[in-house]
């Protein structure tokens, strides 16, 4: 599997996992979906970023001081793809 596919699947898995843990239903995960429309709060995002750091070994939010924050799910995935490569 390419790096892109791995990252994408891990990101989806972790979003689903955290949503279930917090007792939330999240919408179908399409690339143009704004992250905040998922209905997850800051704490959920913080946990997602921490989990992704442990499975992918990167935290682009901390590593990258100048890149703009991702707004859509697609941008979020690319944020991680760029960090993994």
């Amino acid at each position, binding site marked *: 599997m390419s790096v892109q596919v791995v990252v994408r699947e891990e990101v989806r898995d972790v979003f689903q996992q955290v949503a279930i*843990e*917090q007792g939330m239903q999240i919408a179908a995960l399409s690339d143009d979906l*704004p*992250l*905040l429309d998922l209905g997850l709060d*800051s*704490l959920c*995002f*913080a*946990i997602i*970023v*921490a*989990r992704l750091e*442990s499975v992918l070994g990167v*935290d682009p*939010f*901390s590593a*990258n*001081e*100048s890149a*703009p*924050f*991702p*707004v*859509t799910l697609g941008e979020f995935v690319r944020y991680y793809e760029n960090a993994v490569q």
Partner: protein
Amino acid sequence: MRTPSSSFSSLRDALEAGGIPPAGCFVGAQNRIAFGDLLRGSAIATDRENLRGRSVLIASTDPFLTALALVELDGLARRMILLPPDLALEHLPYVMSCAEVDTVVSDGSRLAGLSHGAAEHALCANSLVPRGPASHERLPTEWILLTSGTTGRPKLVLHTLASLAGAIDVSASPADVIWGTFYDIRRYGGLQIYLRAVLTRSSLLIPAPKEPLADFLTRVGAAGVTHISGTPSHWRRVLMSPEADRIAPGYIRLSGEIADQAILSSLRSFYANAKISHAFATTEAGVAFDVRDGLSGFPVSALTDTPGVELQVVDATLRVRSSRTAQRYLGENAPVLKDAEGFVNTGDVLELRDGRYHFQGRCDGVINVGGLKVHPEEVEAVLNAHPQVRLSLVKTKKNPITGALVVADVLLKTPSLPEGDQTRELHHALRQFCRESLPPHKVPSSIRFVPTIEVSETGKLVRRHA
């Protein structure tokens, strides 16, 4: 250094200053109330004499009502207790007895079904009751703010209008300022913005309970808010929002958490026209200083060059003495808030790097999750109550979204460490167990099962900070 604000003996005096009706207003999600109308009417449906000299708990669901009630009560009540939105109601009797509450002002829903004991109850609503001008007799009302304590029971912190407003220079306020804040105004950070608005007679946009960020940003943009404040976590969420470009503030203020370089730089590039400052303030120590150079941490010169505030670094921990600190904690056997010399030990650990001090965490291990404090002892007590847990150690883990997350090391009663599915199930069970008695930000986001937990010779957990 005294700033002009400390000369106001009450919020009402501040609004009446200047002689002409003030132009500003409070703007909620559903309501807007002009300061001029607040001077001629009251949101509290009881005779003013029933409130004079009382110790009043303000317990509304919507902070908009708190904004109205504070104007009515300041200078009239003996004491105002601002109930924050997340206080567990089991602590309410303690708060009421500690603060000698004899009057409860609420919207009728927040404390529905709960006993107020012998306290009288007055309704607070968005519709103003007309009343004549207040008499000139003013009481020096005490302002009581709640902060989290080690055991989950809140600590009651006593301020006055003068100590709360000590950092606000009303003479320097330019015209046409409109304030907004992502904070709840019932906590220190939000209250600072509330007071900046009232004391300078500028409008303030107040978020409604659980108002979606997109809605609030849309309101902020439409109202033309010029000055806006929030925690670094609030701001990260703003920058992840498609509505981030709806607002065009001229001034952005961050406080309540460590502002890292990433959020400062991101705000700088997204809101190129805004002045950005991050402030160090705590409920106990008050506003200590602002940093305006766009860099994280603060220059060493801030220790000596901050007018009106004395700052010391003792054992790598920041101590503050100024007229802006709180007076004391309320209650029997309350901890000491200031030392004999009047310094407040903030408990914030500093490290000196390249001529700047950087915040490293807390000497008491307190974890700051998006501006909300978590005492490790409270979480450990819950974990240790689980039948399979022998001992736990709760720690902070740095996080780029909320600043920090709560994590835990757990020593199980079983001699061997769990494996595979067993680990996952136990992890899930422990988090579920925590969720039953703790708010979400206090539940460990990850749990590690460990073979030992270090205990000192005095029998205490060994905590490593910073």
